[in-house]
């Protein structure tokens, strides 16, 4: 009996070791980051293995940013979220209390390891001569962009257009609303996410211009070839800051808090920044930005805080049910 008791700790340890498989991490992200995180995941897993000796399996889930946030709120077991906009992570913090309200202050640059912007993808030769935002409201120009109520990227596009009009009209809100209303009158189809809009524009051949993430447009250019499409960078656009965060309660439950934190910190390393730049995300690192400078045309940026008072205000005014978007889109139908 005593011998059995003495063996018990060894048996327990053995069973734990036997039961311990690779550490599993789930990254719930938005639509266009598939390629970025495939590369990030492989690099980080390799680094983690070298550092700790543990195998790491990182799962990815992609979809419209708002939809992904709702899934996490409803129970999708995300260890980390890497979404299109801070408002969606705020929702997770507010409604499901899975991470603290101050989550954005826990990592550098407001937890935004890379930035992006909204550019135009046009057909080869730019037959409609689209150079800047003003060209999008011309009669006969067909604009493709997803529904801003379901797509994070589309919300950035909408606010980019609004911001452009504000800047051009000395902050005249009415003129900005009129401009955006005219723009959405030129939108024949509203997809629910960025990938859907790319399909509409590229594969279905609909529209003259696609409002898209800079990285998504650049990937489309590489995949389709310069003989099919061109990227037009407007003179002014919005600085899109897609944030990242550990979902504390889920990670704690899974015992993955440390690896989840390290995973997000990896995005800020030179290696992580370079992978971001390679995938057409504008890196925070000056070194990586200098190395890939040719990929990122210079343009004038404005931020959401600067023109809209932050995401909470922008969301409430423009994208809530009965908000400005509903008003202008329904009026245009």
């Amino acid at each position, binding site marked *: 009996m005593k011998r059995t008791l003495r063996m018990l700790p060894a048996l327990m340890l053995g069973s734990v070791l036997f039961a311990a498989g690779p550490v599993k991490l789930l990254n719930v992200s938005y639509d266009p980051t598939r390629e970025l995180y495939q590369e990030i995941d492989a690099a980080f897993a390799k680094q983690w293995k070298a550092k700790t000796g543990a195998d790491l399996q990182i799962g990815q889930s992609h979809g419209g940013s708002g939809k992904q946030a709702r899934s996490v709120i409803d129970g999708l077991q995300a260890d980390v979220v890497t979404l299109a906009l801070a408002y969606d992570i705020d929702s997770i913090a507010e409604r499901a209390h899975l991470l603290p309200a101050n989550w954005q202050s826990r990592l550098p640059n407001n937890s935004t390891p890379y930035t992006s912007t909204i550019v135009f993808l046009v057909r080869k030769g730019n037959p409609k001569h689209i150079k800047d935002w003003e060209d999008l409201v011309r009669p006969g120009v*067909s604009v493709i962009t997803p529904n801003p109520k379901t797509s994070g990227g589309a919300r950035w596009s909408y606010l980019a257009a609004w911001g452009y009009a504000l800047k051009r009209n000395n902050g005249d809100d009415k003129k900005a609303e009129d401009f955006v209303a005219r723009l959405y009158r030129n939108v*024949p*189809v509203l*997809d*629910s996410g960025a990938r*859907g809009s790319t399909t*509409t524009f590229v594969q*279905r*051949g*609909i*529209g003259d211009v696609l409002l898209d993430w800079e990285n998504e447009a650049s990937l489309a250019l590489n995949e389709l070839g310069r003989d099919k499409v061109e990227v037009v960078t407007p003179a002014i656009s919005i600085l899109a800051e897609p944030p990242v965060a550990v979902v504390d309660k889920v990670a704690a439950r899974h015992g993955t808090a440390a690896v989840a934190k390290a995973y997000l910190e990896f995005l800020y390393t030179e290696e992580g920044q370079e992978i971001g730049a390679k995938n057409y995300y504008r890196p925070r690192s000056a070194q990586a930005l200098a190395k890939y400078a040719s990929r990122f045309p210079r343009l004038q940026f404005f931020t959401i805080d600067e023109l809209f008072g932050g995401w909470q205000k922008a969301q409430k005014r423009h994208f809530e049910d009965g908000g400005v978007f509903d008003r202008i889109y329904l009026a245009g139908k």
Partner: protein
Amino acid sequence: MNKLLGSVLFLAAAWAVAAQTGSDVQDQKIRQLEQKVDELDQKLKVAERKQELKDEQLSESAKSAASVTADTGGFTIKSNDGNFLLKIGADLQVDNRTFLGQGSQSFVDTALLRRVRPTFSGTVYKYVDYFFRPDFGQGQTVIYDAYVELKYFDRAKVRVGKFKPPVGLERLQSDDDTNFVERGLPTLLAPSRDIGYQISGDVVRRRVAYAVGVFNGVADNGLSDAAVSNHRDYAGRIFLTPFQPDERNPLRGLGAGLGASTGNVDGEALPAYKSFGQNTFFTFASGVAEAGHRTRLAPQAYYYLGPFGLLTEYGLTEEGLQKGTVRRDIAFRAWQVQATFLLTGEAKGFTSPTPRKSFDPRNQGWGAVELAVRVGDFSTEQGIYNYGFAAVTAAPRHAHEWVGGVNWYLNRLFRTSLDYGNTNFGGGATAAAGGNRPSERALILRFQVNFI
């Protein structure tokens, strides 16, 4: 000559100009047509894409849409992932009671609504079941079952609310599954419904079922909605079906177990014991109260093999009674043996059989027909008279019954039963006749619809 040459040149130039103008117009028309075609092409593509998106949306909606079904399991609304469920059911029993023989004139032949029980049950958030079942039968409104059950662990389900405490075997059998229209004598010694907490589960690969719980405490065959004292009743049951997983083993349908409860009965209502015909044959003398402890024991077993079924149980209740300064523990005992045989060959079990062919004479469907017989006995101690707890002229201390019946299951939900029950009484004398209480001979016809 020069004039002629000039005219020719003029005509040639005019023709060239005219030709050029025609070509330009033609090109313009072609360009316009191309533009029209492009516009139409875009419109067609937009329409197609919109339809594509609509189809995707419908497909997504279908994936998450709830389903509504109406079948032998009742009416069900179920979320797409199965985590949310509402079942609407009903248990309706219409009885016709006829009393025969000596003493029958003191009973009223009647048709009555024995049970009218709408049932709402289901699941929320995957792991929480709920069950609510009131009864409007016999002119009363009583909540029979109302509980929630957390079923996260199959081996330890937690139930809270009003439900059947885990004691008597036939009591735990659903009303629509019993072999006879009224339950046997041992059920008189088991609690009907009580409010409390229970942990139950199936362990050892479903060979052992257990349940333990804490309840307010109710009288034998009684139900209550509130505790009458700070004391609690503790109930438990273990039931073994050791051969159940082996489909070829002839003992597969064998199950045996023991139910028990114990607790203080101070201030509780006194039980009233009823015959097969639902006439109260045993009442306590006035001034008698429950006092002290009560212990129930209920060994039980069943065996099913093909169309044959056997069910037996024994019930013992020993409880404290007090009249004036006299307080004694009195034992009540009962047993029964039931045997059934399905003439139409369906497999018998603890739940109602499913007819091989539902009632549909035009297609040679007659449902399932079953013969059933039971014998049972109820008795208490002589001391019940000696201590004045019951009057010898009003309460027999012995009842012996036999019941024979036919069950006709027209389909999975509808059943009609005809039972004849004979109960003889002994050990007490009626004041009027000076002999035993007359035997009760009751013929009960039941029509029953049950789906939950």
